[in-house]
């Protein structure tokens, strides 16, 4: 099975370590570092697995961000940490830095067709990330309100 082989595990490890570094860089401390790093790694692993089955970048970004945001909403209250801390660290691997750089390269090379295609893709990924975060945070708000009501 392709999505569960060592290559995916290695990618998970790289994402984990990258977010580990990032969370120390933004001054987090204690056991939280491990959990934020795990969220970053999981985000990338979910993305790769869904990408293998669906062959659609936007869909896999959407699903993986939703899963990771649910993870953040579940774990953050247990550690008495704001949810946004987790979400901020978790989405970093999927933020389209590569698309940004590629579109800029095409633009400088004068290849306008490729450049606009790449820019559109970057914008779509960024928009998808936003929508996924928005969905989870508003559903959680409604859920908490319902819990308080009943």
């Amino acid at each position: 099975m392709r999505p569960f082989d060592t290559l995916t595990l290695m990618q998970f490890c790289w994402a984990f370590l990258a977010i580990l570094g990032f969370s120390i860089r933004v001054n987090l401390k204690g056991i939280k570092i491990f959990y934020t790093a795990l969220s970053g790694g999981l985000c990338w692993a979910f993305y790769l697995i869904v990408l293998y089955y669906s062959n659609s970048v936007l869909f896999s970004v959407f699903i993986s961000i939703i899963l990771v945001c649910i993870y953040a909403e579940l774990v953050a209250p247990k550690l008495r940490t704001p949810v946004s801390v987790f979400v901020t660290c978790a989405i970093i691997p999927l933020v389209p830095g590569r698309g940004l750089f590629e579109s800029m390269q095409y633009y400088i090379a004068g290849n306008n067709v490729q450049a606009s295609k790449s820019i559109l893709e970057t914008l779509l990924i960024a928009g998808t990330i936003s929508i996924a975060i928005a969905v989870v945070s508003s559903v959680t708000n409604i859920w908490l309100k319902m819990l308080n009501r009943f």
Partner: protein
Amino acid sequence: MNKLSVKQATELALEVGRIILQSGGTTNRVEKMMLKVCKGLGYPNTESFVTPTGIFISVNDAEGSISTSIKRIENRRIDLGKITRVSRLVSCLEEKQNCPEGKAVMDVNSFRKELNAIDREEAWPGWLRNLCGGATSGFFCLLFGGAWMEFAIAVLIGIIVSYGMKLLSRLAFNNFLLNAIAAALIVCIAKSMDYYIPYIRLDNIIIGGIMLLVPGLSITNAIRDTMSGDLVSGTARGVEALFITVGIVAGSGTMLKLFSLWGY
């Protein structure tokens, strides 16, 4: 516990808000925290309005006298650890219980002392944070398919850029210029490394460096602010994210073009 006067309570709440907002908290959280502080100090009638660049708060007391205060927020920097610690401290104040981070049961004096300690404290020494910036950049380079030599160069670039951004932020540049210069620095170092070391792919190195600068926090905050109904700060942070992105593209693009004009 002797009750604080309205003025002192306002100042304390403003201090809490300043720390959270300066380290990159969402607007909704800042408003909620200031409300909790005022409630914990015995002033439940509080209104606040927070934007990413300023805090407005007015506290009413039982006799009907109002204390209003405005704070302008400058030099914001990402510090998620401070947000976490201040949030914990405030929830301790609210529940009037033993604080896991502090020693005594919360009264006002120890609250103020803890707050000052959090504001001054550096969770990790500077060199470790710069090293971790390097590690982040390096592992992103590996994540996007880099080899070990490229990893080493990306780590070097990450460390240099982290130091550089620290120095530049001391000069109080705005966000756009800061990110543009940092991106230009990344491309400049990568290109000059390419001159000395054969067989490296620059794309992965530069993308690994750029991942240090991408505005993940601004995107998250913009969406969460908009979803919680703070349209002003949601829009403001969205524009901030856009400008940081444009800054990164402008800086790295200019440097790439300069190098290609020079003949590399």
